[in-house]
């Protein structure tokens, strides 16, 4: 009758952990590939200013950076210590802004072009002159959405 044999005191077999490394490696590769490290290497020094009224930048692909600041030490000899502009990986002049904006626009999907935001990442010690020039250039090519990169702080500046 006893079709169902009463189990003896068989020990439960240990769960094989042999596939654990595979799983973890999978995760590892996922993170390694996702972490693009796409930050361009800045050739200029940017000490970010602080502000309270800042928002997180959403949709990174729509944000294009204009970096302005003094060149890092090894470029000082060539470019001086006044603030200059860096677009992507190169130093640029004010007149390069408009073509750059147009080129960046071309790279985007047509539906997203109007949503492009230009982020001004400016060293806090930079003089306004160059920033104003850049803004005027941006207006000319109708890149009107801008954002001033600043670190969020909760305390007041004064």
């Amino acid at each position, binding site marked *: 009758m006893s079709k169902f044999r009463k189990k003896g005191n068989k020990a439960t077999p240990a769960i094989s*952990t*042999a596939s*654990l*490394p595979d799983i*973890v*490696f999978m*995760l*590892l590769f996922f*993170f*390694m590939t*996702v*972490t693009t490290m796409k*930050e361009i290497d800045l050739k200029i020094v940017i000490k970010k*200013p602080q*502000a*309270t*009224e*800042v*928002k*997180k*930048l959403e949709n990174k692909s729509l*944000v294009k950076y204009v970096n302005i600041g003094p060149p890092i030490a090894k470029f000082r000899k060539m470019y001086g210590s006044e603030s*200059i502009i860096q677009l992507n990986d190169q130093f640029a*002049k*004010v*007149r390069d802004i408009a073509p750059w904006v147009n080129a960046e626009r071309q790279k985007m999907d047509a539906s997203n072009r109007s949503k492009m*935001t230009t*982020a001004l*990442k*400016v*060293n*806090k*010690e*930079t*003089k*306004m*002159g*160059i*920033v*104003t*020039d850049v*803004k*005027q250039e*941006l*207006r*000319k090519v*109708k*890149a*009107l*959405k*801008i*954002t*001033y*990169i*600043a*670190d*969020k702080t909760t305390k*007041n*500046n*004064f």
Partner: protein
Amino acid sequence: MARRALTEINAGSMADIAFLLLIFFLVTTTMSTNTGMQRKLPPPPEKDVKPPEVHARNVMAVLINKDNFIMVNSVPMQLNKITEKAKEFLANVNRREDLPVFENKEVPILGNVPVSKGIISLQTDRNTQYEKYLQVQNELMRAVAELRDARSMKEFGVHFDDLEGDRLEAISKAIPLAISEAEPRRSVKSVGK
């Protein structure tokens, strides 16, 4: 030499090594979220079109000179006073004669409400420090944010940051972000051009 049988490499610690790497990447991936102050530039000036006349009482002129001193309507002012001044200017609670006029405008949900015609014009010298400019900009933005938040609490009992859709639009229109990214004071000199 006796050939030893190949012993199987113990893969048990492999997981540990992989975990170590994984945690390293997890920690270093800062997902660097940049934060920024969002602004909108005015469209380029069209030729032959004169800028609209703005009455003096509707303008709060904020100037920052080359030595980073701030002047509001020709009166020197400290950075920490600007928010209050801007709020007083934009809200004009007592409808004073020397502060902006109000004009009724159609706004979603709220209907026909008076909207301030005040504009804050922020101008800098070419030698003004960027940080100072941003700080002043920040104070002005905060003035608007605080007014909006107060209005939002009054109308809907919700903080402005939590508003969505029509309500957000209503408050945004009732209290516009009237800070003008003004034309530079001096004509743009070709620097580095």
